[in-house]
């Protein structure tokens, strides 16, 4: 039993539940300061992009925007599929297809 991992997971759960329950028990949307609700609205886009971009642009922890980087090419291809289809499953599976293909071609 790895106690540190379990405690980390419990910590993740506590902060997550806090975000879920806080405003459900306290305030409703109309009473929020306008700037705060605007800020929260942009959080998902900012977070998702911040996770994705380094995986694609710097897979080995240094910037690599060349065709020798299969993550970069597969990333561009997947961005196009995501933008056109706007479909989660199609994007996931074509993304996996692209990375397998370009890893195979480029090595």
């Amino acid at each position: 039993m790895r106690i540190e991992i379990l405690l980390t997971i419990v910590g993740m759960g506590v902060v997550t539940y806090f975000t879920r329950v806080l405003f459900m028990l306290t305030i409703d949307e109309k009473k929020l300061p306008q700037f705060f609700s605007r800020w929260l609205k942009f959080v998902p886009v900012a977070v998702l992009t911040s996770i994705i971009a380094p995986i694609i642009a710097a897979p080995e922890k240094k910037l690599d925007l060349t065709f020798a980087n299969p993550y970069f090419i597969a990333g561009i291809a997947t961005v196009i599929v995501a933008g056109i289809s706007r479909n989660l499953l199609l994007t996931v599976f074509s993304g996996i297809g692209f990375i397998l293909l370009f890893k195979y071609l480029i090595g």
Partner: protein
Amino acid sequence: MTRKKEKHNLHHRPSFDALNCRIIGKGFIESVPIIISVFAFGLIFGVLATKSGLTIFEIAIMCVIVLAGMSQFAALPLFAAHVNPLAIIGTTFIINMRHLIMGASISRFFSSRKVIPRMVAAYFLIDESFAMASAYAEKEGERLPRDGDYVRDYLIGAGLAVTVSWSLSSCIGGIFGNFLGDPKRLGLDFAIAAAFLGLLAPQIKKKQDVLVMLVSVILSVSLFVMLPGSWYILGASLVASLIGAVGESYEN
């Protein structure tokens, strides 16, 4: 819309506040199409979690306690890199801050003020159940009868369906993960990026969204390359979302 405190006949209060199994069941059943994609997502999560060094037990515990796919995915590389637990918990918090606005938004449709059922509903506030319950509230809205808290219970039902699908598929994926090779060699770490791109695309609607995206790309890649550890998600997304909010305020 919060309903005015009605001077209700006292006899009606208990049934008005209590959880209603029929509505919970309706939320559960109507969520079946959406939990199919959750299931596929969970399979991928389970495989990657095993590859990041988590055991099946830890995967199951995480799915039930945290129950937030995006932050669980984001935590995997951090677990694999053995970073400071506070960085993992901090990243989880910032990713899940969107729940604040979701909670404020959906609870406008709750009619009961009872705390315990609201705390139960809060546990089931997940991206997918929020989407289902919001659509239900928008569609039925005024027509809902007042003999129960329909939107709250619908959210619980939809959330329950997502929870079952997510936990089960993650464990199945975790078992499969033991038989697969190195995910980095296969490029499976890219599956996270692909999944997030799929979640991201429908959210880009206005020019501020594009601005936030561009700022996030530049900041996250710069911080990732320059700094050790995994604070880049937290740092980049905080600054980028603030810039988006400032931009929108400036425009209005």
